[in-house]
């Protein structure tokens, strides 16, 4: 599904990703661990094609096509979707419109918003005065409407209150078609700093990203155990 080969990325001339190699197969859910500022979000935004992330070397291959130079919306058209950590406010553009845009008018806004306890948000300006948790749920709401084949989630659990945590977990599972078991096709790359999302979600692979490099790879629960026991310091010089 996604294959990243020796990816080097600069922001304003400063190298922040220094040769990333990573593969996500169909049906696979991968977790990306790492300290803040380690480049996790940059990697996701680069995959999505946001401006300011200049690829200096390497390739991003999605569904067997190099997508390095494709505009964002064409990547969306191919089946990539993202939930942003801090989405911007777009004044006058309502949550309802975002769902319509994401689903190309096919989704029932009321039904989807109901699932995420966001009914009251449908006619509000997107992200305006949303709390951190509300933003996360609104992002997931749009992703469900979009139903991408590759789901990129940037810390879906941060800012979410305990009440809604199980809900967010369930929605992530739905996005990744976990209920379809072996028949499922969707893949995911999920950033987590705390690892809480793993209490709700089965993942197949874990990566630790530090200083712009993948420093460790393996079973995500084991990695999380290590991080919890020894901290990120140890993982950065992985002994595996």
């Amino acid at each position: 599904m996604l294959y990243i080969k020796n990816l080097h990325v600069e922001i304003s001339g400063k190298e922040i990703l220094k040769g990333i190699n990573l593969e996500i197969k169909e049906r696979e859910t991968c977790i990306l661990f790492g300290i803040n500022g380690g480049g996790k979000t940059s990697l996701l935004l680069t995959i999505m094609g946001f401006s300011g992330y200049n690829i200096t070397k390497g390739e991003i291959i999605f569904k067997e096509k190099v997508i390095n130079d494709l505009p964002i919306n064409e990547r969306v058209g191919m089946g990539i979707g993202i939930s942003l950590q801090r989405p911007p406010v777009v004044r006058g553009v309502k949550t309802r419109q975002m769902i319509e845009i994401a689903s190309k008018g096919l989704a029932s806004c009321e039904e989807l918003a109901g699932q995420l306890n966001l009914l009251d948000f449908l006619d509000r300006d997107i992200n305006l005065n949303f709390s951190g948790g509300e933003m996360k749920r609104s992002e997931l709401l749009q992703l469900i409407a979009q139903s991408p084949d590759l789901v990129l989630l940037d810390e879906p659990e941060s800012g979410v209150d305990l009440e809604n945590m199980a809900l967010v977990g369930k929605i992530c599972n739905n996005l990744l078609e976990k209920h379809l078991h072996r028949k499922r096709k969707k893949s995911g790359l999920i950033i987590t700093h705390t690892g809480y999302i793993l209490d709700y979600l089965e993942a197949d692979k874990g990566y630790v990203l530090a200083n712009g490099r993948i420093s460790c790879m393996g079973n995500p629960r084991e990695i999380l155990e290590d991080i919890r026991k020894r901290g990120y310091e140890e993982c950065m010089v992985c002994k595996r």
Partner: protein
Amino acid sequence: MKNNNELAKEALLKKASLGEDIDINDYNQITEENPYIENLSSLNNQDRNRMREAGIEASEEGRTGTFLQMDHSVVHESSHQEGLEIMSIASALEKYDWLTDYFGKLVPVDTDKYTATTHLNPHQGYFIRALPGVKTTFPIQACLFIGKERLSQNVHNVIIAEEGSELNIITGCATASHVKEGLHIGINEFYVKKGAKISFTMIHAWAENIMVRPRTSTIIEEDGVFLSNYICLKPVKSLQMYPTAKLIGKGAMARYNSIIYAHANSNLDVGSRVILSAPNTKAEIIARTIANGGNIITRGHLVGEMPNTKAHLECRGLIIGNGLVHAIPEIEGKVEGIDLSHEAAVGKIAQEEIEYLMARGLSVSEATSTIVRGFMDVSIMGLPDTLTKEIDKAIKSCGEEMM
């Protein structure tokens, strides 16, 4: 003391304090009469479409009444509700002796050459009045249409909402599609009596070489509410106006919203002023301006003359490509115990917002137009649903060629 005619004569050459000066003699003051139109559906399609862009429905669907003036002739007037009067200003002056207590009382005729010309050489205008307690559910539509080249249309309009009444009015000003040059000037005097409410929505759909200079004043009595919405999305050569609302009774409220779009070669100088001259009065002025090749001066002025008054002014401007947005907000507090504030911002469309919408599947141009439409969000106007839909429709009908 000089009478109005004398004052007007002396002011015939008086330049306005704002806006480019216009030589009124460049425009025709005389034109032939247009025949009365019994059934609006007999209007030709081109004119109907132009009117629709100004919020006027020839079918009268969802309207309580209609006033239509073409050039200098009132060609249609109808009211479909008891207690609601819609007629030409000349008929009203003939019918009601007392109207002289209102006509020409709020806007001094010697304000400038435009008011003076309108006073001395009036070409009709409308009179709309709701009797005490009468409330219109659906809007009334009033259309001032210019169908001839190089014509001057000088109108004097009076609206009166008697005590406890409620008026919803859409005024659409437009030119026929073949008209290139023209001048529209006028005097508007609105009265909101005790406990009454006027929602006045004006939509301008002019053409590239039209000059526009309306002069408008409103007074609002105790517990009265005045909502004024202005929408101008079509090209216009030069438009300058600075309507004023005066809150003279306690508990009165005024709100001005405007959405202005300046195309290349369009020059708009639009302001709103509220004078809070009674206690416990409130006001809000909200302007959204977009310059896409044209120039916009957006003014606002709040004057607090009595304690316990509260008002806020907000100008947001967006520049696409090139253009000018010059925000001039003014607040003037004259006593202790007032609360006046303003905020103004001019910017561009944020790349981050475009990319966010692209990440949901829109192309760059789709994302841009979605953001611009959002910026012109009419839900900020706090209007009844039916009216919001109407305005949305007008914006969409203009929007397609605008983007």
